[in-house]
C-alpha cells in the first residue's frame, strides 16, 4: 500500500512542469529524460556536456531537498532485481524507438498538443496498465 498524496503530487507536478517551462525559456528544449540520458550514452551527442550537467542536477536536487528538509524520499521496489534488469532493458529499447517517455511525451509533448505524443502517451499508459494487471492479477505476483 502507498498513501494517496494529492498535495505533494500537485506540488511535485508543478515543479516538474516548471522545469519544463524553464528549459524551454532558457534552452529552447523539451524536458524529455529519454533525450537527456540518450545524449550522454555512446555515441554521445554534440551537446552532451550541458545535458550531463542537467542530469547531475536532477540527481542532486532530491539529495539536497532531503538533507535540507529532513524528509526521507521513499524508494520501495516491489519486484526482484532480475525483473528490474528485464524492465530496464525493455524501457531502454522502448523509449529509443518510441522517441520519448513520460516526461517527453507525457508532459512536454502533451503540453505542446503534439499528436505524436498524445498517441504515444495513450499507448504506453495502456500497456503499463495491462502489464501490471497481468503481473499482479493473472500471475498473482
Amino acid at each position, binding site marked *: *500500500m502507498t498513501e494517496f498524496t494529492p498535495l505533494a503530487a500537485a506540488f*511535485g507536478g508543478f515543479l516538474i512542469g516548471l522545469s519544463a517551462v524553464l528549459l524551454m525559456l532558457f534552452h529552447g528544449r523539451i*524536458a524529455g529524460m529519454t533525450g537527456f540520458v540518450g545524449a550522454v550514452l555512446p555515441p554521445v551527442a554534440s551537446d552532451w556536456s550541458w545535458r550531463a550537467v542537467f542530469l547531475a542536477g536532477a540527481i542532486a536536487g532530491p*539529495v539536497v531537498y532531503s538533507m535540507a528538509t529532513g524528509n526521507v524520499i521513499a524508494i520501495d521496489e516491489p519486484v526482484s532485481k532480475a525483473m528490474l534488469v528485464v*524492465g*530496464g532493458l525493455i524501457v531502454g529499447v522502448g523509449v529509443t524507438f518510441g522517441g520519448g517517455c513520460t516526461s517527453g511525451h507525457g508532459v512536454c509533448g502533451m503540453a505542446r498538443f503534439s499528436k505524436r505524443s498524445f498517441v504515444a502517451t495513450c499507448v504506453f499508459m495502456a500497456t*503499463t496498465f495491462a502489464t501490471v494487471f497481468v503481473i499482479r492479477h493473472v500471475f498473482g505476483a
Partner: protein
Amino acid sequence: MRHLSALLIGMVFGTGIAISGMANPAKVLNFFDIAGTFDPSLVIVMFSAMFTAMAGYRFALRRERPVLEASFSLPSTNLIDRPLVLGAATFGIGWGISGFCPGGAIPALGLGSVDPLIFVAAMSVGIVAARTWRRQGAKAAPATA
C-alpha cells in the same frame, strides 16, 4: 551560464519528481493497479505538470529565441508510425514490470537505494542496443528511412 542554468533546472526537475513520489516504484505501480492497491497520485502529478507546462510554454514560445540559445529546437515530425507505437507499447511493458521510467529513476539515483542504479544501468544497455539495432536496420533498408 548554460551549464549553471541546466544544473538549476535539473535540480527543480529532480526535486519535483522526489516530492511527487514518482521516484518510488511502489507508488507508480499502485496507480496502475486499479483492481488492487490503487493510488491515484500519478495522474495528479501528470496533470499538474502538463498544465503548468502548457501555460508556461505559451509564454516562453512567444519569444524570438530562448534566452541562452540561438533558436528553439522542437521536434518537427508529426508522423504516427510503427516505431512510435511499438516503442511506446514496449516502454509501457518495461514501466509496468519495474515501476521506473527514465524521469523517475534518474532523480532516485542519489538516494541510497541500489535499485535505481540497477534499472538505469539496464536501461542504458537497452538504449545503446536499440540504437545499434536501428542503425543496422536503416543500413539494410535505406528506402524506408
